């Protein structure tokens, strides 16, 4: 091959902490950049039904109910040229970095890897992972987020954690080049990448918050890829010669949560159910999102496979039902607060306003309250926007991940349900499929019928505008993978 191209990407926002397990890295805009800098032990192939592949691990063997052994890939070189060893893996998963109460990775650990209790080095190429309980999704976790392996030596050599977090050393296809805080990040090809030569010599992520400016920049030829295109703007790129629109398939979703414990009017279960039935999700997906989003009606995603109950319907747009429920409720037209920041998610404000209109049509008086910060949103309770995605093909990664006792709805005291928490725990710790199925079913019943606290809206597609000839495939998740094509080495 001749000269490799370099890539210019205009993004709507950028964060400069590049340590993947840092608390502030739990954000779409961080994952997008970090995904090409690191490798995890396993790799989820999002474009192939979330199938798990070997990455830094070349084999995974369950030794007993709570113990797994990993053999590491050979000849993996860090960005600084040093070799990756079991020590690096142990350190990467150590309490100092990840598992400790005060570790920078505590948040990521709790979200993705909470079952890991211990990590032991067996030899230079072998590591044992011990979990607290049985873990039905153990392998999935290793391929989700948080098992990025960094160089223990480089960590120790760093002046401070802050200095480290600004330029960590990983094994991924690109290393960190120039970083201009809040403005741009340049990644440079890591030519000794174990998976082959990266296709681009460098990748520059440039912050450009104005969508019109991003599109204009793409058209002017200043950028190769621009992110966060909303469906309304697709037509501006689609027709242009040399440009194309990519992405749209999404495993990321938007939903609404209710905080009955904070907002007394919402105590009424029928009202909450009516709220859910009054939403015309198709209108949002088809009308507002130009068909680029898919309506989401329940918590069973096709990729979950066996655990799903094929007969389950979920919620649907049913004005009659909404009326009926409303009649049964004690609701008398009181104002229900709907605090929102309005600009956090793409198309958030249009969604908000459309929802308010739909509720109005159903006879529910919801008041949209624009907030400037999350404190205000938190304090007001009522109805809240939220989003989340499936990192792996299991409901643990969706419903439980979103509503679990450590997550914001429960922590801030908006909603609590002991039964739900108990079932969720079971879902997470038993490998018995029947038990898991039952738990999952009951959990859905709780959040849909008995004590609704959440209602799904639609998928949130990641749409990119790009030059036609750029060879990359977008994910259904915010991560952008720009490295070389990796061989398929599925985990059994």
């Amino acid at each position, binding site marked *: 091959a001749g000269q490799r191209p370099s890539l210019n990407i205009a993004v709507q926002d950028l964060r400069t902490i590049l340590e993947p397990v840092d608390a502030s890295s739990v954000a779409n805009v961080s994952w997008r950049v970090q995904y090409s800098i690191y490798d995890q032990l396993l790799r989820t192939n999002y474009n192939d039904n979330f199938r798990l592949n070997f990455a830094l691990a070349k084999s995974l063997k369950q030794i007993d109910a709570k113990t797994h052994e990993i053999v590491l890939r050979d000849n993996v070189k860090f960005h600084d040229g040093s070799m990756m060893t079991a020590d690096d893996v142990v350190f990467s998963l150590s309490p100092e970095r990840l598992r400790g109460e005060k570790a920078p990775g505590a948040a990521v650990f709790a979200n993705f890897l909470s079952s890991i209790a211990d990590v032991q080095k067996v030899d230079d190429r072998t590591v044992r992972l011990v979990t607290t309980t049985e873990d039905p999704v153990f392998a999935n976790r290793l391929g989700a987020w948080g098992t990025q392996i960094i160089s223990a030596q480089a960590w120790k050599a760093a002046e401070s954690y802050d200095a480290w977090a600004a330029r960590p050393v990983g094994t991924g296809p690109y290393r960190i080049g120039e970083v201009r805080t809040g403005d741009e990040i340049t990644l440079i090809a890591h030519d000794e990448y174990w998976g082959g030569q990266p296709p681009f010599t460098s990748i520059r992520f440039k912050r450009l918050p*104005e969508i019109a400016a991003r599109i204009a920049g793409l058209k002017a030829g200043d950028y190769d890829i621009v992110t966060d295109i909303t469906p*309304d703007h697709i037509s501006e790129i689609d027709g242009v010669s040399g440009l194309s629109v990519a992405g749209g398939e999404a495993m990321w979703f938007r939903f609404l949560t209710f905080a009955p414990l904070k907002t007394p009017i919402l105590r009424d279960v029928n009202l909450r159910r009516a709220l859910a039935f009054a939403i015309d999700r198709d209108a949002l997906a088809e009308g507002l999102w130009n068909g680029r989003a898919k309506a989401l009606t329940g918590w069973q995603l096709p990729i979950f496979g066996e655990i799903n109950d094929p007969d389950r319907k979920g919620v649907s747009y049913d004005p009659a039902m909404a009326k009926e429920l409303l009649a049964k409720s004690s609701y008398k037209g009181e104002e229900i607060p709907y605090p929102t920041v309005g600009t956090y998610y793409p198309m958030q404000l249009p969604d908000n306003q459309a929802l308010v209109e739909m509720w109005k049509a159903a006879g529910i008086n919801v008041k949209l309250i624009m907030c*400037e910060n999350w404190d205000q949103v938190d304090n007001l309770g009522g109805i809240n926007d939220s989003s989340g995605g499936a990192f792996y093909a299991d409901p643990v990664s969706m419903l439980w991940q979103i509503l679990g006792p450590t997550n914001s709805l429960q922590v801030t005291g908006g909603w609590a349900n002991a039964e739900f928490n108990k079932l969720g725990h079971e879902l997470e710790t038993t490998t018995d499929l029947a038990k898991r199925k039952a738990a999952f079913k009951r959990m859905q019943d709780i959040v849909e019928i008995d004590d609704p606290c959440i209602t799904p809206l639609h998928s949130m597609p990641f749409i990119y505008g790009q030059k036609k000839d750029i060879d990359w495939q977008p994910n259904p998740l915010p991560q952008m993978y720009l490295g070389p094509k990796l061989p398929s080495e599925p985990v059994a």
Partner: protein
Amino acid sequence: MLLIAIAAPLIAPHDITAMDLRHRLDPPFGFGGTVSHLFGTDDLGRDVASRLYFSIRTSLLIAFSATLISVFIGTAIGFVAAYFRGVVEHFLLLLIDVQASLPFLIVALAMLAFFGNSLVLFVGLMGLYGWERNARLARGLALAAGAQGYAGATRQLGAHPLRIYLRHILPNSAATLLVAATVTFPEIVLVESGLSFLGLGVQPPMTSLGVMVGTGREYITRASWMLLAPSIVIVVTAMAISVLGDSLRDKLDPTLR
């Protein structure tokens, strides 16, 4: 413009929040759109014309009252600074300096942080916009009227300072302050647009010219009418107001009659 503002509920063909998600971003009448949506529809399929009428109403309300407040506060502080010399004056000048070096964003945050967001409050906040310029101006005018001119003459007649400031200096400064206000007006509409975008401004379901411009800019190529309609209104209003300001100044000044 004022007429439209007053009559907005009567002439608006559609409810401003009535949306039609299947007729989003319809172009204006004459550009492929229908008569029912004269200026087309916006990103939620709402009628741009109706929203425009209501926006004019909100924006005029905000900008007028805010300009009034701004001029009032500025004038009051400027006069007080001119009347009291010494410590009081230095303190007020300090206040003016502080405001001048404080980006308005911070002021807006402060107000919202302590008082929450509501239309009345928002008007009050916008009223803080540019007061320091008016204060400087008013102080200068009062000082100029000072000892030598008519103010000194009235003082020596035995008039109370309040009378001097309210009956003499104020009417005489009015013309200049008025002209300053005509410049403040479009600025307030634009600042409001900026703030609306940061979630600090006019809240949905209400709408304003600023909100419309703010939303419209995303659609500058896709649905330019969303941006053009409010922009043209702002420009025309600003021109009308600057012409009005000039003629009002001439009207108020007996020497120009």
